Each structure stands twice: as C-alpha cells, then as structure tokens.
C-alpha cells in the first residue's frame, strides 16, 4: 500500500542542535494526519524539509509511493505538495488574486491577464467554499480571510497534499470550527492533509491519525480512535508534567493598576481598545484570555506608554500615568515581560550583564554622574545569573547566543529584581520547553505571594486557567466578562472569547 507522503528516517542538523533525528512520517491518502509535538520539537523543520525549504542530511521522501527529491518549493509544488504557512506568506500591497496567481500567472499575449486570474480565484473559492474577495488588497482583509487566501494559493497550484502549519494560532474558536469544516471538505475532494499542531483539542476534532514527535525524535504514530488526550499529552511531553499551580490563597490587596474607560487607536487609526475598564490588585494574578488581535497587545502597550491613549485614564499605584513617557511609567512601578522577547525584551548584541540593567543603567549604583559603574553591573549580573539559574558561560556572553528559555530567564530576572508593583507578562512561556515554563510560572506565583500585582496575557487557555486568580476575557477591544477560574472551563471561555456572553443572549 502506498502513502500520500512517506518520510523515512529524516535527519536534519543545524549548528548546535539536531532538529530532526531519524523521524519517519507516513500519511495515508485522503486522511487528516496530525503532526503533534511541543514548540521546538522539530515539527516545522520536518515540514520545511518536505516543502523543499531545507535539505535533509539523511533520509528519503516518497510521494504517492514514488521516491522524490525535493530541492526547493518548486519541486514540492510540482509534486502536489502545498503549504499553508503559520506566518502568512502574503504580500500586503498586492490584491488577493495577485497573491494567489503569483509565480504561475495567467497570461494573454505575454501580459498579465488579471481578469482571468480573478475568474479562476472566484471559481476555486466557490468550489471549496473559501470565501474571499479577489480584488481586495491583502492588507485590508481579516486574518481569517488571509488564511483562506493561503489555502487558495495551494489549491490554485493543484496541490493534493496540504500542510497546515499551526493554522489555528491566530483564529477565534468560531473560525477554528470553520477551518475544521474546510479541512474535512478538502479531504472529501480527495486531498490529504498534514496538520501541525500542539493543541490536543484540534486533533480529536479533526484528525484521523497522529504522529507524535519530541525533541526531534519520533515517538509514535497512532489512530485517533485508539487513543485519548492524556495518553497523547504524556507522549508529547515524555514524562509526568510537574504542574505549577497557583495554590497561594487569594487575598487581594489595594488596587495597583486601574484602567478607566480606555480608548486606544491602532496603526490604522481604528479604535482597537474601546472604553475598556480593568483593575488589578496587589496579591493577585489577573489573566487576560482572548484570541490574538482583540486588543491585548495595544492594551499592554498603552499601559507601558508605548502607544498613545486617545481617551481614558491609566493609574499605577494611584499615580496617573496616562500618556506618560515609558521611563516614567517604569519608575512608577511597572515591570514588563514583553511578548516578543528577542525584539522587545533584550538587546541581543549586548552582553547578559548589559541586558540586566536595561532600565536601570542610569541610576545609582549602576551609574555615578553619568558614568557607568561596570564593576557594580557585573556583580549584579553574576548574582542574578545564579539566582535565576541562567545557563551561560559568563555574564559577558552575548544575549544572542543563549537559548530561548535562558533569554526569557534573563528578562524575568531583570524585571522581578526591580521589584515592580505591577508585573505584566505577555505570552511569557511561548515557545519554551517544559522546564523553563515551570520555572517561569513559579516566578509569577512568587510575585503574587509577595503581594505584587501580576497581569498575565496568554493565548494558551491552559496557562490562564492554571495561574489566574481572576480571568478577564477580552473581545474586540473590550473586557466582556470577568470569571473565576474555579467556576469555568475551556468551553465557556471559548464562547466568551468568540464574543458570546453567558446565557447565549448575545450572538
């Protein structure tokens, strides 16, 4: 029997790590096959090998039973393999139709035939039920529609094997349901699908079989009907997870963060935060649950003074910090673990020591009369490296050369050490391995125990449910409900995140 895709004994090494170590993946014709594993387990590498973006160091690939050598995406496309990228590969300034036909344009007398392109896109979109407007520019359409454009790109090229790379990360629960319907329809039309994911729920809703990989190695392949969520989860992690729970009693103290009727514009001058109210007390972790793009980023940026507030007030410790300079807000008691740790949290080409004083370098004892006190800085860095278990040869090492987990530890060490009254943690564990996740969760709980206020923003419902004392659900720039984690579950949160208030009276 031949498989739609068979990857045998794939090995791919990067300087310093083996991303794929003897991985075998067999995808049957007409199935939805999950490729399941943690962040950094090697899923994306494997798929990039299949799509021709990387060359494997060892191993063979068979497509519909025939041995294939895939040098580049062209080869993959020719073999009928299409990829729906996690970070959409779309050109903002081009129209939907231009994006779809790019590289395989319909021509008339050697010129672009855009009329024909639009017609083809319309036909395809009707055939597969993928609603798009071919003439709109990509920068003007919703994330959900952008994803449909990505899918149409592969269909336009006649792909019969589709790779979906973490497709649900940016979607609302409702859009996720729609996507699953689309995937099932595609399979009915004779396509085979590989779904890369680290979310159990999707696997059990959408998939036929599942291949689990962990730390670059093959663990097992199972039929979904023969397994259960907890079995898959332990396969993914490889051991019993030592879950950090927020077990400290909930004793809220005085208000630390007060957000009052906040309105914020995004870069397109649209209100992304509308009249939002929120209070975080000392001694509590407030989790913000919500689908990406509902204003979380803008809310945090407004609090941190990185984005202009149009209307409303923000107070930290009773001090009005609305539209103040970031430095002033930091001095008022803000600590911030940003979402994009490499871009926003660290100066990668600075040493760890220099990074440890990124907000305090100008203050005593790190500086005297505008002159850096390098000895003091070094001593502090050494102390924090030890305290927070940062794995590094020395404090002189560049932040760039640390692993993701250790980079995050540097940031957490720096922020916690300043002992801020309010600590904002945005996606603090994204992309980290289990060990680092546990460590960071522990530190957040410690802050709560010290009586500090913690504002946690995460797309991982798990994380929110486990750590929060209260959960605020954000939807289209507003907090639509605040719930007690002990009295709710993923289902209810999912509905709220899609904008449906309790009782179902709101669509």
């Amino acid at each position, binding site marked *: 029997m031949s498989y739609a895709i068979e990857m045998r004994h794939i090995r791919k090494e990067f300087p310093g790590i083996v991303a794929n170590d003897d991985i075998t993946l067999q995808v049957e014709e007409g199935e939805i096959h999950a490729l399941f594993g943690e962040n950094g387990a090697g899923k994306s590498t494997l798929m990039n090998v299949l799509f021709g973006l990387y060359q494997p160091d060892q191993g063979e690939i068979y497509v519909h039973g025939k041995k294939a050598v895939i040098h580049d995406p062209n080869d993959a496309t020719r073999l009928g393999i299409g990829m729906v990228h996690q970070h959409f590969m779309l050109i903002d300034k081009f129209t939907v139709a231009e994006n779809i036909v790019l590289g395989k344009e319909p021509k008339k007398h050697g010129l672009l035939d855009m009329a024909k392109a639009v017609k083809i896109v319309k036909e395809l979109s009707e055939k597969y039920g993928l609603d798009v407007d071919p003439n709109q520019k990509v920068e003007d359409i919703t994330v959900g529609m952008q994803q449909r454009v990505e899918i149409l790109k592969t269909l336009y090229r006649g792909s019969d094997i589709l790779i979906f790379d973490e497709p649900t990360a940016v979607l609302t629960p409702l859009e996720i349901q729609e996507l699953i319907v689309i995937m099932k329809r595609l399979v009915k039309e004779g396509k085979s699908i590989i779904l890369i994911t680290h979310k159990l729920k999707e696997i059990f809703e959408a998939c036929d079989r599942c291949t689990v990989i962990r730390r670059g190695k093959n663990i097992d392949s199972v039929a979904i009907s023969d397994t259960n969520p907890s079995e898959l989860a332990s396969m993914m992690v490889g051991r019993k997870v030592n879950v950090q729970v927020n077990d400290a009693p909930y004793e809220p103290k005085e208000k630390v963060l007060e957000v009052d009727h906040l309105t914020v514009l995004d870069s397109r001058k649209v209100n992304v935060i509308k009249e939002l109210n929120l209070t975080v007390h000392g001694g509590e972790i407030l989790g913000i649950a919500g689908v990406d793009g509902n204003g979380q980023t803008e809310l945090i940026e407004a609090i941190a003074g990185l984005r202009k507030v149009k209307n409303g007030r923000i107070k930290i410790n009773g001090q009005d910090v609305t539209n103040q300079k970031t430095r002033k807000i930091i001095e008022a008691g803000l600590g911030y673990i940003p979402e994009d740790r490499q871009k926003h949290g660290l100066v990668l080409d600075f040493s760890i020591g220099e990074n440890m004083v990124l907000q305090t370098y100008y203050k005593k004892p790190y500086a005297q009369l*505008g*002159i850096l006190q390098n000895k003091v800085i070094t001593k502090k860095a050494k102390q924090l490296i030890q305290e927070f278990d940062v794995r590094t040869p020395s404090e002189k090492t560049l932040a760039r050369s640390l692993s993701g987990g250790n980079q995050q530890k540097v940031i957490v060490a720096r922020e916690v050490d300043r002992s801020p009254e309010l600590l904002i943690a945005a996606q603090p564990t994204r992309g980290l391995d289990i060990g680092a996740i546990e460590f960071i969760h522990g530190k957040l709980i410690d802050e709560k125990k010290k009586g500090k206020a913690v504002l946690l923003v995460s797309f991982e419902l798990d994380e929110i449910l486990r750590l929060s004392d209260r959960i605020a659900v954000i939807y289209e720039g507003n907090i639509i409900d605040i719930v007690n984690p002990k009295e709710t579950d993923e289902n209810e949160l999912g509905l709220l995140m899609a904008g449906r208030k309790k009782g179902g009276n709101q669509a």
Partner: protein
Amino acid sequence: MIGFLKKINWMTLLIPIVSVILGLLCGAVIMLIIGYNPLLAYQSIVESIFLQPYYGGETIRAMIPLVLAGLAVAFAFRTGLFNIGVEGQLMVGWLASVACAIIFGHLPRVLLLPMSIIAGGAAGALWGYIPGLLKAKFKVHEVISTIMMNYIALYTTAYIIKNFLYHEGERTPTIPASASLASNFLANLTQGSRLHWGFIVVIIAVIAMWYILWKTTKGYELRAVGFSPDASKYAGMNVSRNIVLSLTISGIFAGLGGAMEGLGTYQYMTINSAFTGIGFNGIAVALLGLNSPIGVVFAGALFAGLQTGGLTMQSVAGVPVELIQIIIALIIFFVGSSYVIKWAIERLSRKGHKK
C-alpha cells in the same frame, strides 16, 4: 573560555586584514595586466612614506581629516545609522571655521583658535542634526537625507564664499596666523610638509569617542538604540532623542575634520565644484576599522598612506594615482562581503584541521 574569546577577536580582526591583502593583490593584478611593475609601485609607496620625512608628514596630515571623518561614520554606525553626509558636514565645518577665523580675526589666539575649531564642530553638528531630526520625527531614511544634505552643503558653501567671503583665486581670504594650526616646527621636522597641530584634536576625538560610547550612560543608550531600537524603547529610552544626538555628535567629528583642513592644511577654503572625497573615504575608513576608534586610526593611516604614497607611485612607477581609489573601493567591497570571507576562512581552516 578565554580561548573562545580570543578566537572571536582573531576572526573579526582577520576580515579587515584579509580584505586589505585582497585589495592590494587585485591592484597588483590590474597593474600586471596593463604592464606596470606592481612591486615597484608598492615599493615606492612604502619607501616614500617611511623613508622620506616629507611624505611621512603628509601622510599624518592626510590622516587628520580622514580619521575624523572615519570617527564620524563609525560613531553613527554604532547607533545603527549610516551617515553618508560626512562630506557635507565636513564642508560646512570647514567654511564655518574659516569664516569664524576671518570675522573675529582681531581676537587673541587663545580665544580665536578654540572658537574657530568649535565653530567648525558646531556647523557640522547642525548639518548632522537636521537629518537626525528628520529621521526621528518623520522617519526619513538617513541615507537619502544625508546625501541630499551633502549637495545642499556643496552649493550653499560655494554660494556663501562667492558672495560674502570672496578672494581672488575662487576662494576665501587666508585666515589670520592667530587662528592657524600650521607650525613651522612641524614643517621643518618633516622637510616642509603641511603637517599641523590638528593631530592633537584627532587624539582627543579618538579618546572621546571611546569614552562616550563605552563609559557613559549616554553611550550605553546610543549603543542600545543602535543594536535594537525596539528593545530600547521598551526599556524606556527615548529612541528619537538618541538618533538626533548620534547624528549630531557624528556631525561634530565631521565638522572638526573640515576645520582641520581650513585652519591647518589650507588656511582658507576654495569654492568647490565637487566633493572633497574625504567624507566618502571616511566611510571606507570606518568600515575597515570595524567602527572602533582605534581601528579607525589604523584604517585612516593605511588610506592616508596609500593616497600620499600614490603620488610617488605615479611619478616613480608611472601608475596613475587613481589606482589607489580602485584599491580602496575593492577593499570596501571585500570588507562588506565579510560573510563570504568568514565562510571561506572557516572552510580553509577546517580543511587544515583535517590534514
């Protein structure tokens, strides 16, 4: 660990060295193809610089504005900015220093000389401040804006000289001796070269750049902004202000370079119809010097030597002096292609290990 660090330093040092060697080799190949004797040509350069005091003096003299221009480019680079406008900043600095010396010619030397030098630095600062402000406020890319500022400087300085400071010979009057950096002592020492006291300004500038960038909190900010404007902003630094500051300080170095020409080498300013080339050479000097103050000094010495010795080369070996410019261009290409050079060196050393 120490071994590890040493290895990195070697590697970074190796690139400029390899680039210079490759550049000189390419120059030699060009000479061979055309039928010149490359050995004679290079020999004439080396001999003139090291054995003839006049050319030695002229080399150091040429280094003065070149190193300052290099510092200007390097300083901006450290803040992540590409200052192509050193040429223009240097010109306005040159004119401002000369104008100051002439206008306030009646003042005593203790006042006039520092004032004229400062005027040069200040004019350069202004010419750097404008693109800095445009970048900070309007996100105008500094590469484009500094190029525009160069031409504005070129035409404006010419216009000012023609209309307000004109002297026969398409130039300004000569500055009073009380504002001059020229020195009979140094000239006699070097058999009549134009070497002047400006080298002291250079030494101060080199130390100042090092001290500012690595010892002060301002320097820490400038470097942080240079490496990662985003992280700096998140950490509460004022990115815009640092961009403006960086280009302004860069402009000071450039303006001082111009002042050295005006108060030292020439004692006047001519109406330029084209650029001096010092500013553009400064880019080469900064790149080759890896944007470090001491590196800029070495790179400046090399290019100044090549340019000064190039004149001897032309007379002794008959090779047009433009060959030097070709070699400098090639060296920039090689330094810029450090990625490939690194890759090649690694390949070679790995092969070496296998044997």
